[in-house]
């Protein structure tokens, strides 16, 4: 079955150009993050991703522009947003007391968020200068110091905003704050390499070893990804992550091919993490007024995950389930 890449919005290239290059677009800053590296951390979730993975649990971060989240359960249908929207992008929807946003028209200005009495609208995407972002993450410096934690830049795909992320990471470096990055590795080697020197740890995704399956489910080929992982592991400590999605990549063949690939990366590979597919991102598609295509997929069974882990470990690779 050929899957169609969802494209229910039109990326606006001009907004990226118009943007001051010194600023980066961040979906959110999550303090007290515990899943993305050692200790107590702050996770910077960047906007924009070149991949369109069908199982994506963080669809807010795909769009490289600010956009509106709509929390339907809070909406009372008062209509304030309809009147305020400068683009006339919001209309009444079929259901009483509900509205709909024409995403093609929306410019993510956030005016509707301001007027919403019921906090049913949120803006995903705020611009920061590297210094502003650093001041935010510095607030939990005491926690990093105590726990051996630090900062993790994830997304989205951080290398899409490589210049900004590079400036931010060098601020972290000069303050001796541990820095990690999560990347899909679908980027030019130059951009990736420009960030590696400022990083203590790199998380890289390995979604499928088969090129065709990879592009069917993510929208892009895995060739450049595999190449970047090989190169990065020559210079940096790397953790590989495989999102285990039933029906896509959870076969013994694929995971053992992945383990063989990982084994060749040598000593800089710290471990391989198997992240079981989960449905906890579905509400986010609703908030973006998009449809979710993996309704029928169930999380992989614990037993299956344990078998896969045992298999990876049989290659002599440290392996864990979950981040």
């Amino acid at each position, binding site marked *: 079955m050929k899957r169609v890449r969802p494209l229910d919005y039109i990326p606006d290239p001009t907004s990226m150009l118009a943007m001051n290059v010194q600023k980066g677009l961040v979906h959110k800053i999550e*303090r*007290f993050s*515990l*899943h993305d590296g050692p200790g107590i951390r702050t996770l910077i979730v960047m906007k924009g991703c070149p991949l369109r993975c069908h199982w994506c*649990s963080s669809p807010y971060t795909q769009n490289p522009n600010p956009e509106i989240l709509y929390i339907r359960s809070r909406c009372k249908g008062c209509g304030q947003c309809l009147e305020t929207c400068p683009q006339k992008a919001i209309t009444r929807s079929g259901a009483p007391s509900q509205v709909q946003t024409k995403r093609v028209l929306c410019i993510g200005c956030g005016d509707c968020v301001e007027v919403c*009495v019921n906090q049913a609208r949120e803006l995903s995407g705020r611009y920061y200068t590297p210094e502003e972002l650093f001041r935010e993450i510095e*607030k939990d410096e*005491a926690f990093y110091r*105590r726990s051996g934690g630090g900062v993790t830049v994830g997304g989205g795909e951080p290398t899409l905003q490589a210049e900004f992320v590079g400036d931010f990471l060098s601020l972290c470096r000069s303050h001796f704050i541990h820095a990690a990055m999560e990347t899909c590795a679908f980027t030019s080697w130059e951009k990736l390499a420009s960030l590696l020197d400022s990083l203590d740890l790199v998380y890289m995704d390995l979604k499928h070893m088969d090129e065709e399956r990879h592009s069917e489910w993510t929208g892009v080929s895995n060739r450049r990804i595999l190449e970047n992982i090989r190169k990065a592991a020559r210079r940096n400590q790397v953790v590989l992550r495989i999102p285990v999605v039933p029906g896509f990549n959870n076969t013994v063949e694929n995971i053992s091919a992945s383990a063989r690939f990982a084994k060749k990366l040598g000593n800089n590979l710290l471990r391989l993490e198997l992240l079981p597919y989960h449905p906890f991102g579905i509400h986010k598609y609703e908030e973006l007024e998009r449809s979710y295509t993996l309704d029928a997929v169930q*999380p992989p069974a614990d037993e299956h995950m344990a078998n896969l882990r045992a298999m990876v470990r049989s290659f002599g690779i440290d392996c864990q389930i979950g981040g």
Partner: protein
Amino acid sequence: MEAVKDCGKIHSPTSTNVSTSPMRKRVKRLRENHLKLKYDGASIDRLRIETRVMSQTEDEPMVMRRAKVFAAVARQMPTVILPDELIVGHAGIKPLYEDVIPDDIPVLLAGKKITPVKEQVAYAFEDFDPEDQRALKEEIAPYWRGNGDWARTQLGSNLKVLPGYLKELFLVDDTAFPPKRSMIYTSFIKGGHYGHNSANYKKVLEVGLSGIAREAQEKLASLPSGNTKEKQFLESALTALEAAMEAGGRFAAQARKLAESEKDEARRTELLKIAQVCEHVPAQPARNLHEALQSIFLLQVLLYWESPRSMSQTPGRIDQYLYKYYRNDIDSGVLTAEEAQELFDCYFIKLSHVSYGSHISVGGYGPDGRDGTNEVSHMLIESMKHVRLVEPFFSILVHARTPESLLIRAAELSSFCSSHPVYLNADTLTTMMLARGTQGGPCVTLPLARQATPAGCYEPVIPGQDSGYMFGGFFNMAAVMELTLTNGYSRYYKKKIGMETGDPSTFTTFEELKDAYHKQLAHMMKHFNDASNLFERVFADLLPTPFESSVIEGCIEKARSREEGGALFNFKQIVGAGSTDAGDSLTAVRKLVYEDKTVSMKELCEALENNFEGHELLLKQLCKAPKFGNDDDYADEQVAWVSHIFAEEVAKQPNTRGGFSIPLGAPLQYYLFGGRVVGALPSGRSEWQALSDAWSPSAGCDTKGPTAVLASMGKIDNAELTAGVTLNLRFDPGFFKLKDGIRRFTHFIRSFADQGIFHVQFNMVDGETLRDAQKNPDQYRDLVVKVAGYSAYYTRLLKPLQDGIIARTEHKL
């Protein structure tokens, strides 16, 4: 305050094996038997004794009459010893029951229910058996009713002494008896002693009650002749001590009696051992760990016999003063470590059978400033893991040199139990005690400050040196905010109850508003203290405690009861509520009225008057204004200021025992009641809603996670709130399942201490909370759960996924 007995919820599979030593079968049986115990309802047995003695001694001084009541109770209370027990004694006839006290009588006769703190099972007049009902009505009530004004009870006397202008503030309706209380201020207008103290347990261990009696006799002999107040006190103390010294012997006799008919050889030997121990303590000094534990436990029972219903008679930092007995026994081979562990476990189970909220702390500083952690500290955490009951309240005193091993054990306990332990900052605790001297009390020396122990929830006292807190009552800072914006008019009482601090629409600057708030607060505080001092005198006149005074340093030397200022340190606490509501209100006004000028003060006041009806957009803007708890200086600054002026004004209030008042930030459930009398506030809180819980952020307003809450809390001067301040943090137990969860938790605790915050208690998110969040999503916008390797806002997940998380939480997956 929860009514559940069992805290044995296990949140995480990683924590099921955290016990480093196996729990002995005896402890398991004792625990199970305790959980099977039925709550026996209220009893008038003690009240009968009290009424009889009081009516027979009308012409004697009150302190002697109270000593005689205590002596009669101590000699007549039954001595029950339960199977398997090694440490014996009960506060009452049965392990779980509630004493009726004189103040309850008018309430019961009026057909109302009484809800005891400890078991939270309400009882009414018809719940007593017919004979008790008759006795209450015909024998007991007539004495306490007296000539009709009930002046022999605390409540009756309080009403008598309260002048009209204060009566208005405390009571809604004083035509009925008992009167309807107001909630603008509350105090313990009735209900007996407050407890919350740590007597000189160490001294009782070292010299025995007999040693203290000798001191009293010597002091008595040194006094000049004549029937002075001093003499009356010492004679009363001796009367009380004499009866108290017999208590051990009575339990010993019971143990011997049981031994005679005991068929099991091993149990017979144990009973004879119990008899030997009780024949010696608490009258004589303790010679080993078993005697020491028995001695401090019987002392606690005796204190309860004198002041029924008093809460948290606190043994305190027992790892500090029991260590030498433990060390001695181990070194001399009297006891193995396993046997010592069993004794500690048995002792902890017994703490469910005395006053509510016995507080035990471990760790902290020794008097010399070195780390106080020892083997007993570890063993007591182990006991908590074994016993897993609501009692005792248990805290870890943390400072920079607290060994990681102790914090790891504590974190394991956190992963295991829903509410234990509480984490307290030992450095802030020490600073608080030293700061008391600057607030009008006598100077506290550094070694004494380091020995401070938390009582009750955490209120620090200097063990054996403090009078015990006289409870000053709850003070409503949110109500002060309303009065400031109404020029003294209360929306609930529909009349002027505050000071006229000016029409707010005439305030041209934010500073003028803050000045008005400060003036209003100082005015209300003064009235509040006037009343609470009158209540304090009623305590001294009606309820002196000669026995408890004798185990508080200073009372015998000065020949004065603690109610008359006999102790070295004499403080009264005044409890604040609504600081976050007041602070967030100031922030919202500052932003909207004085900076953005989106609304005029006049329009704002109108909106408040109408509870925001017709002002929905304004309400939204108010709600959107920065809020405390998000590490935002703009908002945190105002809450810190309100907290500061509250602390400052409290510290100015003298009490009637030569001491002063100290501020406390633990309003308990008052945040619910206190909200019922406060109209809408600029913070966006609607009328009659609950206030924010203690000093915590308002419900649903902290959205940046626990590190941001700690950062905001750290901006409040915790140390100047010298009776302590509460921070409750909601926490997902899923945390402990993470890789290195325990270790990351200990780091989190270290960072908490780094912020200078005094107290943190974790409310582990349970199924009940999650279901409530489904029903009231707006109250739980901040609720974050850890799922599938990341954090999610619970209320935004789809319903089936929410249900899945409830199932996960409750099935302890």
